């Protein structure tokens, strides 16, 4: 099938979803049968557009021209199993997940109006799912946790975060880790937080020896540890005041593309059951933690 056969359908679907948003949100169930074409469309067009975050090692990032990461490999597995090409839509994070779902899944961006068929790395949270009725969140594939990687010679043990009153800690600016550290112990860590503009910047601060530790997700911490020139260890000390110490992540699709979601969910189940996902994460130095059955 050529591109032209796909375009009118895409436009049509887009328009219908907007109409239903503004006027007929009560009729979603009835219209969804009509709109449930995306799986067929994807197969017919021979291409699946997959959203991954940019600068988000070890899940998705560019190493030179090569797009790498756990989420990227899951995306490629989608293509393999569905027998379609994969186009990655790589964008930065907006202010919150609701914005990301709008821009990358159900509405598209303001300039080019481009969205993806599926978004990876979406927190599987009932509240988020309910709030964003034009997106569907499904198929948890990984359990995200918060953790710290430290230089184990400088900090042989890490019973609490109090050690970071005196030892600098690196963190990517404006992330869950940054908010936790900024608030911790009534602001007593303020002078020891070393914020990086990107996660890579934060890693550089840690690797340069300027900070004794780095806070991020467990996967990030393990990935840093795996590639570090320092002697490192991973810790998950108590995090008083943190909103969640762990949460599952899955995929999001458009509300009218549930059948695509089922097909991709099957791929994810197979990746988990066959042990392939574990092999993927371990190839990035990240131990695989299966999400609890939800």
């Amino acid at each position, binding site marked *: 099938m050529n591109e032209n056969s796909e375009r009118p359908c895409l436009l049509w679907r887009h328009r219908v979803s907007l109409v239903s948003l503004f006027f007929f949100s009560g009729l979603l169930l009835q219209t969804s049968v009509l709109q449930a074409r995306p799986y067929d469309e994807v197969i017919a067009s021979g291409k699946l557009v997959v959203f991954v*975050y940019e600068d988000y090692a070890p899940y998705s990032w560019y190493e030179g021209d090569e797009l790498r990461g756990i989420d990227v490999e899951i995306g490629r597995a989608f293509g393999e199993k569905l027998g379609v090409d994969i186009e990655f839509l790589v964008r930065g994070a*907006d*202010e*919150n997940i609701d914005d990301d779902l709008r821009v990358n899944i159900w509405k598209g961006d303001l300039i080019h109006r481009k969205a993806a068929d599926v978004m990876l790395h979406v927190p599987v*949270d009932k509240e988020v799912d309910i709030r964003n009725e034009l997106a569907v969140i499904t198929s948890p594939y990984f359990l995200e946790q918060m953790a710290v990687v430290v230089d184990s010679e400088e900090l042989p043990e890490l019973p609490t975060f109090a050690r970071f009153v005196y030892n600098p800690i690196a963190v990517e600016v404006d992330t869950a880790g940054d908010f936790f550290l900024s608030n911790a112990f009534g602001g007593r860590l303020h*002078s020891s937080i070393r914020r990086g503009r990107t996660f890579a910047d934060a890693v550089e601060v840690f690797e340069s020896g300027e900070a004794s530790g780095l806070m991020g997700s467990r996967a990030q911490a393990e990935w840093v540890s795996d590639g570090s020139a320092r002697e490192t260890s991973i810790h998950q000390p108590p995090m008083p*005041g943190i909103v969640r110490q762990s949460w599952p992540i899955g995929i999001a699709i458009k509300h009218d593309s549930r059948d695509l979601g089922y097909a991709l969910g099957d791929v994810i189940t197979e990746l988990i059951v066959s042990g392939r996902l574990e092999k993927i994460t371990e190839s990035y130095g990240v131990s695989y933690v299966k999400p609890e059955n939800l």
Partner: protein
Amino acid sequence: MRISEKRAAVNAKSLLPTAVSTSLSALAGAVVLSLGVASAPAMAEGVTIDDLMNDQATTDDIVTYGLGPRGQRYSPLDTLNKENIKNLFPVWSFSFGGEKQRGQESQPIIKDGVMYVTGSYSRIWAIDIATGEELWQYDARLPEGILPCCDVINRGAAILGDKVFFGTLDAKIVALNAETGKVVWRKTIANYEDGYSYTAAPLIVPTEAHGPLIVTGNSGGEFGIVGQVEARNPDTGDLVWTRPVIEGHMGTLNGEESTMTGTANETWPGDMYKNGGGATWLGGTYDPDTKLVFFGTGNPAPWNSHLRPGDNKWSASRIAINPEDGEIAWGFQTTPHDGWDYDGVNEFISFDMEKDGQTVKAGATADRNGFFYVLDRTNGDFISATPFVQNISWAKGIDENGRPIWDPENRPGNPAESADGKKGKSIFAVPSFLGGKNWMPMAYSQDTQMFYIPSNEWGMDIWNEPITYKKGAAYLGAGFTIKPIFDDYIGSLKAMDPATGEVKWEYRNKAPLWGGVLTTAGGLVFTGTPEGYLKAFDAETGEELWKFQTGTGIVSSPVTWEQDGEQWVAITTGWGGAVPLWGGEVAKVVSYLNQGGSVWAFKIPKQLALK
């Protein structure tokens, strides 16, 4: 992107032979010519820096954003007046075309019978005013990765010599040949991949050290950015100086480090100043009298004020910069330790204030935080602050030093304090984060000596939200919703006496006002409404004298000029901007408004201008 570069290359080639042959053949004559016209404006060179500085007095053109560098938006034209305004008729309407519409916030530039007007999605047109026909159009090729935060608007162009300048959504500034629309140069202000954008009209100012400079701020990037003011050579686009607005950051002059803004860590904890915010997204004004450039700065980051104890300078401030070297002459912080998203970007307008029999070199600004400030523009000293919207709740007032008397009850709480995952206590703050006044510029009449402020009466509920996620990770955020204060109106155009703080009259509008204001020596005040009307009021009484329905919402600033002995008025139209992006109760009064994209030109025919 590639196409634009190609255009630039072609343009450079085609210019070269012309330039060479002209300079060779006219070599002998050129000397005589330049001697002969030394005192007159050099027409051959197009618009001069003197033209820009004298813009307010010369009524046959509009070569600056704000009808003069001070941004007073006052025209000495009085052909059109209270008696004959009923005879103001539309002459033409020019469509921006395409599928792309959204908000049109642009102010046209007028020179030698040509209108230069920018539109949404980084487009610009040159229009023959006599006929309303297009002379050229330039579309910036916007890259895939660009994600502007708010709307795809542009506020206008600048003009100097034979070039027209405007900023694009991918944070670049483009210089075009005014006659052909071909690219002369194109420079990156900031990297759009880091979330930067550009929407303001550039400012051009004179200097002794560098000649004219084109001065811009920066915009976009919710976090991790630092507001900065930059000056460039208008011929080449080369950077002359930069001035970061957050303390602890180093400025540059002629490619070398100059001085640090303030002192690192003085009013910020830890290394937070490094990503402190303060985007200078609305551009600036210039006062030829004190020779200072005035810029406003955005809110500090992160949003949660409990994470950053201290004043957080110079976020939410006005700063005066010496354009010779980019040094800060003075700063005045309207909202120290902002917790409400009260950007301090609103325009600072220089004016001479008659008070107690004396003339004060003053400047005024109507802040998002709901207070109208008058400062001494020579040194930034505080003179007065008066509420220009009702029921302000975030502060109980402004003290004699110009600092707010905060109401701690109405500061949004720390989300971390509701870590149990429950919705926290809700507070009601007035004004809302969209401000008592937002970007839309006010006007100052030299006749009535009053400011005409386009304002909005609204507040916001803010609460700690149970849970949200950023970049896949969980954190506690804040929820908010904007609420009108009154049942029957949000928009409020007010005439304020800056010397007394007295509101002389008020015009109320159902939808929020989002367009700029123009006032004239004919005793008129113009502004547009989201409902689609361009309206004219009696500057003394506020009586509505004239209106015209343009067919879509107005969120731009009107202009007036004289051409072939007739007075013209123009306005861009097209509903959009930030208001439609926010829902809540405000959506009820704006959700039915249709998009558009055009510029309307009006004039009063000669025979109808006589009483």
